[in-house]
């Protein structure tokens, strides 16, 4: 392959819950795609997976991914070369790979190699040495929550993924890996960049950052969303070049847009100090980037600079933090907002009188500007309707349970025009706190395994 040929990397899953048909659609729309990335893990996803694994030890991964494998099986069966890189493995990459292999066998695909990357689970180390892991933002000691820890996973970098690709993996299933590393790894393997080629690795990190949230770079959640045709919105493809620059694009004939604006918006998504974007593969500066709109949904991003990554891995832990429930009712009529607020007060007062006052509570009148409560005081004036949302949280499940029974009586004892109770009582959910911290790289040992279907 000529060296000026880019590596084409798509993303068709920006989070767990993204469109299930997107991966097969994107692969069909872009026959030249070399690599498809699927991102399933958000910060608190691990705690949901932990609950599943408690019930059945063979689970603990994003099971939706197995359906995606089924939808892609005809692609591999046809002999097309398509690399798949995903963090769907969650807490159990090996279990995920086993289910994936079974699905491929059932579909009649053979000779496919699945790479498994694990070793990110460091829960045992946190339990044994809590003193090493203060909260990254507040500095609080881990001992305050150590007894309620549920998961702890280090964000691995591209290196073990590169090893797996070099061992011939067609499908790569990982646990917790930094999101951009899903894109950086195939680039390093393809272009044979040295591990310390920081500017190129920084460029690939930018490319990964741009596509990791799927349609967020092709017009989704754009300020100008109303000006684009979002039906059949295209998922992103990034063409990464040997020099680490890239072009963000999407398949022809799909909805959405890739413009200077959509790319700049996504560059700024969830970043901190733009001079030091920290990933396990490089420390990246956004301050040297040049973004050029070349038209026809093609935007070039070049000029990334970078240096060595931090000496520690970022780590996310989750811990049990009590219970919560949230109930919705609609109030229609004159002075709707005042009526709804009174309803909220009444429910909390009832709980207080019965000795079941929740430790935390929040009353919101949706429609009255309460999504950004206090910023737009005039927004609730003259509303004919509002949605009342009451949310409570407490370490005692029974207190939250009690709240769910005190909300529905508003249907007969509340104001005229209260309605919309078809969903029944609110549901009690467990709350998982999020504990970001750092861990020495030498305490983490990435594991790579290859299985053949």
């Amino acid at each position: 392959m000529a060296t000026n040929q880019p590596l084409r990397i798509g993303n068709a899953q920006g989070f767990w819950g993204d469109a299930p048909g997107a991966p097969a659609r994107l692969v069909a729309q872009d026959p030249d795609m070399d690599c498809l990335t699927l991102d399933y893990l958000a910060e608190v996803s691990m705690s949901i997976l932990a609950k599943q694994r408690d019930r059945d030890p063979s689970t603990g991964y994003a099971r939706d991914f197995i359906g995606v494998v089924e939808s892609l099986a005809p692609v591999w069966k046809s002999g097309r070369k398509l690399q798949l890189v995903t963090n769907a493995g969650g807490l159990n990459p090996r279990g995920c790979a086993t289910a994936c292999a079974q699905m491929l066998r059932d579909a009649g695909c053979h000779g496919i190699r699945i790479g498994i990357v694990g070793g990110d689970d460091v829960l045992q180390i946190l339990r044994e040495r809590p003193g090493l892991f203060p909260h990254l933002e507040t500095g609080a000691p881990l001992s305050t929550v150590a007894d309620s820890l549920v998961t702890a996973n280090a964000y691995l970098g591209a290196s073990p993924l590169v090893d797996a690709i070099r061992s011939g993996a067609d499908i790569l299933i990982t646990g917790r890996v930094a999101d951009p590393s899903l894109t950086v790894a195939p680039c390093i393997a393809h272009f044979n960049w040295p591990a310390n080629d920081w500017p190129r690795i920084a460029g690939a990190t930018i490319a990964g950052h741009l596509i990791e949230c799927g349609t967020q770079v092709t017009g989704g959640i754009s300020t100008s969303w109303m000006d684009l045709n979002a039906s059949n919105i295209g998922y992103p493809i990034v063409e990464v070049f040997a020099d680490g620059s890239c072009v963000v694009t999407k398949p022809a004939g799909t909805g959405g847009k890739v413009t200077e604006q959509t790319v700049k918006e996504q560059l700024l998504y969830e970043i901190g100090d733009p001079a030091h974007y920290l990933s396990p593969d490089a420390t990246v500066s956004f301050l040297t980037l040049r973004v050029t709109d070349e038209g026809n949904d093609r935007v070039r991003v070049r000029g990334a600079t970078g240096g060595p990554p931090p000496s520690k891995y970022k780590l996310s832990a989750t811990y049990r933090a009590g219970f919560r429930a949230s109930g919705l009712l609609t109030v229609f009529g004159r002075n709707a907002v005042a009526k709804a607020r009174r309803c909220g007060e009444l429910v909390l007062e009832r709980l207080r009188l019965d000795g079941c006052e929740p430790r935390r509570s929040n009353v919101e009148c949706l429609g009255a500007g309460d999504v950004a409560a206090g910023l737009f005081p005039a927004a609730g004036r003259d509303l004919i309707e509002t949605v009342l949302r009451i949310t409570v949280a407490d370490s005692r499940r029974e207190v939250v349970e009690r709240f769910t029974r005190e909300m529905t009586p508003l249907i007969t004892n509340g104001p005229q025009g209260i309605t919309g109770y078809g969903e029944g009582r609110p549901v009690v959910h467990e709350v998982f706190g999020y504990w970001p911290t750092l861990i020495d790289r030498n305490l983490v040992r990435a594991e790579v395994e290859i299985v053949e279907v």
Partner: protein
Amino acid sequence: MTKIRLGQIAYARSGDKGGGANVGVIAYTAAGFSFLRKTLTARKVEAFFQPLRPGNVIRYELANLWALNFILPAILDGGGSVSLRIDAQGKALGQAILEMPVEVMDDELADFAAAST
């Protein structure tokens, strides 16, 4: 002087970072960016978001993108599944900041506004 909304001269994107959030504000034009760099200070953004208790707001400049990145370290009231707010992930903060009132000179507005499409 004319009173406008920030959204007439800039676009935005917000998202969560644990219990905090970032809000990126991107000017439509180079002149608009020079203006925002001078006037849209961290203190001004902090004051605007005060009812949501944002914490000590930090501002970073990305002149190459005509952008400012604001970190609001405490604005999500715990964030994730801990926050009791409907916008626990800070998704709406970009839309909120674009409603911020801004005063510009009458003759400046044309240089700051998005080219009409």
